[in-house]
């Protein structure tokens, strides 16, 4: 089963510590070595993006940044056997932020991807 993990959060004023990047690389390496990480990448701040909206039959295009308080930071696509495994990998990822970047707050949303194994 495929799970899409979306990390969003609010960065503290301090710059992200290099140890965090290192730890993220290491965890990604472990997930890769376990054969479960299919794809992952970081996302630029929404300032570089845009939003196309349909509301009341009217389409509008708005340039970033989006008004949400939390920015999407990265995505990862995992191939796992259960939601519990997804929670475990996501927890490890969030834990790194807790341990290595004081003041950081955020979340990982776990979404199951439709596929041949669930009628998609």
């Amino acid at each position, binding site marked *: 089963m495929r799970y899409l993990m979306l990390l969003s959060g609010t960065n503290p004023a301090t710059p992200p510590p290099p140890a965090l990047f290192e730890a993220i690389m290491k965890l990604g390496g472990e997930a890769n070595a376990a*054969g*479960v990480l*299919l794809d992952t990448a970081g996302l630029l701040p929404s300032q570089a993006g845009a939003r196309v909206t349909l509301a009341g039959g009217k389409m509008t295009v708005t340039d970033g940044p989006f008004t949400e308080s939390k920015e999407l930071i990265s995505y990862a696509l995992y191939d796992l056997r259960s939601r519990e*495994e997804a929670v475990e990998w996501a927890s490890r990822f969030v834990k790194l932020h807790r341990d290595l970047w004081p003041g950081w707050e955020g979340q990982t949303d776990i979404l199951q991807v439709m596929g*041949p194994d669930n009628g998609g």
Partner: protein
Amino acid sequence: MDRDEATRSAIEAVWRIESPRLIAGLARITGDVGAAEELAQDALVIAMEQWPVQGVPDGPGAWLMATAKHRAIDLVRRRARYDQKLREIGRDMETQAQAFGEPDVGTMDDHIGDDLLRLIFIACHPILSAQARAALTLRLVGGLTTHEIARAFLVPEPTIAQRIVRAKRTLSEANVPFEIPAPGELAGRLGSVLEVIYLVFNEGYAATSGDDWTRPELCAEALRLGRVLAGLMPRQAEVHGLVALMELQASRIGARTGPSGEPVLLTDQDRRRWDRLLIRRGLAALAQTEQLGGAPGPYAVQAEIAACHARAASVAGTDWERIAALYVVLAHLTSSPVVELNRAVAVGMAFGPGKGLEIADMLTGQPVLAGYAQLPAVRGDLLAKLGRLGEARAEFARAAALTSNERERALFLARAAECQPGGS
């Protein structure tokens, strides 16, 4: 889900992620995969007791490893009949265990790669039957339960349990060492590993029996195993070849089944449903085999064929001539009549059904293919394209009688019906 249940599923998830590394590390200490698995399971039982009360520890994998190692020390101490060497190892472990203090996954990873590789090689040891290897590998390296393996292979659970017990006993009685094969025997032993992984994949990709045409979860297990192996043996081109083959074939799983579960053959598939991510991964793995150089092995060549399909926007746009040529290469490597049959299909597409039929007709006397449903199915297809409908119908009926997959039988019967005069 209540709190206890949530903790329980969290433990199960940790177990699935950690158990292969756990068993591998313990097998290095005990030299016996059976004992290693028992120790690992002891640790799991302790976790099941303690974690719901004390909470899941911060480094659950490291916790399990430390706990299991303590059990291993106990075991060594209790067994006075163990020789001096083993007692030394026991002391070794004790100092290691003391050094843990705060368990940290990082410090324990030093041997993990090698241990995991040893575990894969022992689980796929040629002393075991292919079936036993598959079951043991899924259990020890894939972290599946006996129940899950039995369900995946549509075999009663006691059969799988017995298969695994016997396999472990065979390894133990034969004193099969827990080690990576010497360079001289590496190629053969690796072949045995690749064979098992592809066997698991194929059982999922074209289920040989049962009501379902594919069992994607089994393909996913094989893919994960292949990716793990590729990470452990990055210099082995054929490992990447197998991974490429599986990624590319798996990219078509969603398109291989119709709305009511019926098989859809490659040439009839809606290519928009092919999984672009898996295709990209497959092509990347294939590029790695090419980068490593050397003559491509049978998996790499098959991956190359799968890549021809993956790159083509349509059946007509497929480079069938290249596929037919690749089947010639593959036939040299495997001398399998099944490969020759596939070549007949490709030649039929590249140079006309008559040319394909010439090749297929030469295979009808092959004893190996006597009960193989695909032979009459391919001949039926080529005959139908040549307008020889009566003969085609007989071939499809024969194919339907030979297959043990219900979905496939329905497909062949439908094709036979199409060959009726007045059929579509």
